[in-house]
């Protein structure tokens, strides 16, 4: 995207009917490290790549438990993500207190989207620079949603956001038809494989990724590093050689595409 005279204010439309500040906020999501989510009929798995600033520092927290039945993975400005997670936790706990019942994830997602929309229509605010993958259960089963800085939300069977997410998305597109009836463990395996796709040849080990699961009868929790490493070893993901090579080939063609597509005039928030 290139600078233009309509991109200073979030409340300024371009002649083509775009809000550039909002689109720039969505770019911020693409810069964050990858987060993926996939669901079956009864379980949802969230995964993310841990990117630390330097070898000396610890990595930022990107997966948050919102309630026993809802969790969120973020990509983009993690500070914005933290604040939104606090909002979500507040909403859940207030609902639980009043109704003694868990807040349906579909309703939380709409509230979150409405909150994001406000920031696209006030001259003294800026859009949140974070994309959220919300995983949760309600009366109608397991759900995975993606909340954009634009205030839109979409429901997905599987999705990936952040840098090099296209590789993960390609993997998920190949496999998603099996997800509805997959077992919990197969779902986690697929999540790890999708994360591996975004690592571009780097070895997949439990120190570079975080996995969280929520499902019917299983409250939201982040799997500990030991369990994750065991699963990686068990599925012999590290050993698969054709994976990283094929992914590298796809990376090269995927990245220039992203840049060109955004500049061509299709407003990303419409997708």
């Amino acid at each position: 995207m290139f600078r233009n005279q309509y991109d200073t204010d979030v409340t300024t439309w371009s002649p083509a009917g775009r809000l550039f500040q909002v689109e720039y906020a969505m770019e911020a999501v693409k810069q964050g490290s990858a987060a993926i989510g996939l669901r079956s009929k009864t379980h949802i798995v969230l995964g993310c790549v841990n990117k630390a600033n330097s070898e000396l520092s610890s990595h930022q927290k990107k997966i948050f438990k919102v309630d026993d039945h809802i969790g969120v993975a973020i990509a983009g400005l993690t500070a914005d993500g933290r604040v939104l997670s606090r909002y979500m936790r507040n909403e859940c706990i207030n609902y639980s207190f009043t109704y003694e019942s868990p807040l349906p994830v579909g309703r939380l997602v709409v509230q979150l989207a409405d909150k994001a929309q406000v920031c696209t229509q006030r001259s003294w605010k800026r859009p949140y620079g974070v994309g959220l993958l919300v995983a949760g259960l309600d009366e109608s089963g397991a759900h995975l949603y993606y909340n954009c800085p634009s205030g839109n939300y979409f429901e997905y069977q599987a999705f990936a956001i952040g840098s090099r997410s296209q590789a993960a998305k390609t993997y998920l597109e190949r496999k998603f038809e099996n997800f509805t009836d997959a077992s919990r463990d197969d779902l986690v395996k697929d999540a790890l494989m999708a994360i591996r796709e975004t690592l571009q040849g780097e070895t997949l080990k439990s120190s570079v990724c975080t996995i969280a699961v929520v499902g019917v009868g299983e409250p939201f929790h982040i799997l500990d590093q030991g369990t994750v490493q065991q699963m990686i070893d068990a599925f012999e993901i590290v050993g698969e050689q054709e994976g990283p090579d094929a992914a590298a080939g796809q990376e090269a063609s995927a990245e220039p595409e992203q840049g060109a597509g955004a500049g061509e005039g299709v407003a990303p928030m419409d997708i």
Partner: protein
Amino acid sequence: MNFMASKQPENCLLGPESDSQRTLYPYVTGTSVVALKYKDGILMAADLGGSYGSTLRYKNVERMKPIGKHSLLGASGEISDFQEILRYLDDLILYDNMWDDGNSLGPKEVHNYLTRVMYNRRNKFNPLWNSLVLGGVKKGEKYLGTVSMIGVNFEDNHVATGFGNHLARPILRQDWHENLSFEDGVKLLEKCMRVLLYRDRSAINKLQIAKITEEGVTISQPYSLKTYWEFSAFANPAQGAVGTW
């Protein structure tokens, strides 16, 4: 003239005028509500009386109403406060329906919402002067609970308000069992209501029985119970207690 005296605004909440802003005592009241769980759902009974102090003034007051798809609310106490509660619940159910998303508030959620409302009002020393019974069925699960005007709430297999607690609950404790048929449930409720009719002076002989199952709510037409006044104790009340009338 004292120029130093501060003028109080007309809607002042200090002094004797403040009491008129909050509920001190009930005026038009309903008496007991009795309810029990049976095989397919909940059965609830209440008469159609609205007393004005000791006068049995209103004889067509419906004290049980359906709430949403899954619940039934019965109330005793101040009738106008019951109508206010129905307004709150109307709004609640309306907003719930407006989500249009396959989720709906079940009896447990409505019961807890009412508990919050009643308790908060009690904390402000401005109670809704009611004892509520909330019953319902959702996804095969039966639910029966009660909330009082001070916010005391609990669930049980059978509940009652007011005099029903003293006269009906003992009968229910003895005769209630799991998986009552509809006919047995109604017979048991009628047994309780008959005792209340004999012994509660604010009860009238015009009642309704409501049923809620997975399919929905049915409230019967008003009817009366057969009563028997030829008991020897009624015929000659002074026999065991000389001087009584």
